């Protein structure tokens, strides 16, 4: 493994409160791989919800706080592609726009699958997950963090999530039709444009379920949360699980 150093665990606010099991799985998986993991308990939110809604300036104090808390680590790793992408892609230009110093976080923050795939270069994982899963290629995971090749681009096809899942015994991996079409979450979009958002979610779920999968899995719990809300309302026979929860199964 080509990796050394201490990592700071970034557990986004909604993962902390709604999906703590995803945070726990991330911690267990990383420590199982012999990685030195710390969790700065004073962390809160990366600032994405207000910035995407049009209030970038309200995220500035949160960006400062984020930088202070995570400055001392060699890597920052989080189980949420969208939040990580926000720190990586948007923190630097927001600070710049508000006349602040350059942001160091961009070069050392990783979404957990990306970190395992590109930095730790995991080649084997014990434990089995004998289920059919459909991979949810989230927009920010695909088009900002490049976890898989965007369907729009004429480039060689790859998927870091599928690579990692292939290490696990028993898991059967599928992908939906319209492989990386948005599920309609979109932060405040979900409540502001709720009609379109719910329709997008229903369509996405139909495509996931058509694969015959028992679970929808992905690197973004926010997308999963939105689709889960629809599945519960519509009584759809499909479950949701974060990729790290599959990777940690049986460890």
């Amino acid at each position, binding site marked *: 493994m080509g990796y050394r150093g201490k990592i700071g665990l970034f557990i986004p606010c909604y993962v902390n409160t709604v999906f703590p099991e995803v945070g726990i799985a991330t911690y267990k998986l990383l420590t199982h791989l012999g990685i030195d993991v710390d969790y700065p308990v004073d962390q809160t939110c990366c600032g994405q919800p*207000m910035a995407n809604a049009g209030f970038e300036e309200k995220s500035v104090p949160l960006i400062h706080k984020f930088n202070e808390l995570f400055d001392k680590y060699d890597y920052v790793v989080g189980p949420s592609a969208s939040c990580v992408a926000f720190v990586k892609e948007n923190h630097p230009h927001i600070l710049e726009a508000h006349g602040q110093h350059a942001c160091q976080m961009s070069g050392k923050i990783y979404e957990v699958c990306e970190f395992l795939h590109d930095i730790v270069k995991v080649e084997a994982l014990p434990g089995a997950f004998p289920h059919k899963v459909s991979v949810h290629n989230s927009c920010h995971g695909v088009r900002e963090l490049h976890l898989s090749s965007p369907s729009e681009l004429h480039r060689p096809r790859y998927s870091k999530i599928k690579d990692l899942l292939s290490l696990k015994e028993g898991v059967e991996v599928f992908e939906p039709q319209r492989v990386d079409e948005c599920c309609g979450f979109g932060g405040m*979009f979900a409540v502001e444009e709720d009609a379109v958002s719910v329709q997008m979610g229903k369509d996405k779920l139909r495509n996931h379920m058509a694969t015959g999968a028992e679970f929808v899995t992905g690197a973004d719990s926010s997308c999963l949360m939105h689709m889960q*809300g629809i599945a519960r309302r519509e009584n759809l026979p499909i479950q949701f699980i974060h990729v790290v929860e599959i990777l940690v199964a049986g460890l």
Partner: protein
Amino acid sequence: MKKETHIHAAERFLSNKKNAEWHDETLWQTRTKRDRQAALIPEWEQLRELASKIKMHTITHLDRYLEQFATAAEKNGATVHWAKDAAEHNAIVLQILQQHEASKLVKSKSMLTEECNLNPFLFEKGIDVVESDLGERILQLMDIPPSHIVMPAIHIQREDVGKLFEEKLQTEKGNADPTYLTRAMRQCLREKFLASTVAMTGANFGIAETGDVVVCTNEANADMGTSSAKVHIVSMGIEKVIPSHDALSVFVRLLARSATGQPSTSYTSHYQKPQKGGELHIILVDNGRSDNLADKDHIQTLKCIRCGACMNTCPVYRRSGGYSYSYFIPGPIGINLGMLKDPKNYYTNLSACTLCFSCNSVCPVQVDLGNQIYKWRQGLNAIGKANRTKKVMSDGMRMMFQQSGVYHAAVKAAPLMNLMPRALIYCKANKWGIGREVPQFAKQSFTSWWKKEVQKR
């Protein structure tokens, strides 16, 4: 009159479930065809990159290229007119028509003339305008605007066209066969073509080195029009100029593949000289474009070649339809162009985006459409158009997240939310709950788990 917001128009569009589903699938098919065509070109991504650079170069040297274009065009025998806005453009068209005592104008499809509101202007002056593109003609007979910039009548189903033609063209009752209906329209239009003295087209490209205008169509209606009439008026936005035929070779490979998933349009017509004994008028229209040149956040929209690929891929456009946007151009490019035109008038379209960035990736000239929508949202507060609920929510979040103590207290209290009665949670104010169940807060947050299980060890 207060315009309907995208949110409400989209809701209305989706309430006709069958139609909405059909619209989504139809547009998605176009996106799929585009993907297949792109995949056949190994250098597709290099072409996009090159096209973006050529456009950026041209629009940042626009003074030079426009002059070169105008000089070359005039040398070819064309008359070049400069219009600073829509009113000037329309006045020039009218003047040319009057000079030729024409009471009729046969037009091929042009979004610029939509932008200038040319047709209503000419009708008022007693000119009969005939749209000759099949889709545009259908819409003209229905008296409704286009819902898409490339496939203007894509939202109309063939049965509705059949009914319309029964009434307007006396076609057979109940016959909605596309070939039959197209033939009927062709018969009807042929007479109009032959009787017209003035024809009008838009322009996909203007070539600076040679002064020719390039028009890409599938129906040859532009060519019919310009061949039958002695006078040809071209309405062209100043950003349509490109340096050379070499540059054109990049764009024609991208345009039809991106737009409709065809390797090329059926007709790519080059207009260089007036007909023998005729006239060729080229109207170069600014109408706000030169102001956009100075806007570093949004200058990239001037690269747009109006292929419509961003609409076909946009998951929101496909599920809300072209009429759900208040600007005459819908979808990601329309949101941006509307904001450039008049932010206070068109800002409500900004909600129609999940920031999925699919538009950025399909755009043949790499316009950063999604990023620009994000940037426009940042400016809403300054013009007093920020959404109050979102502002309050954002303020609340900042206060809570800035103070770890407040956040931790909120995290601890969160599971109590699960105990709230259903009627309180699923009230009108909670738009999340209209179509979804709300997430359950965990009994123990990750932070509590960490403190208990890891820190204490």
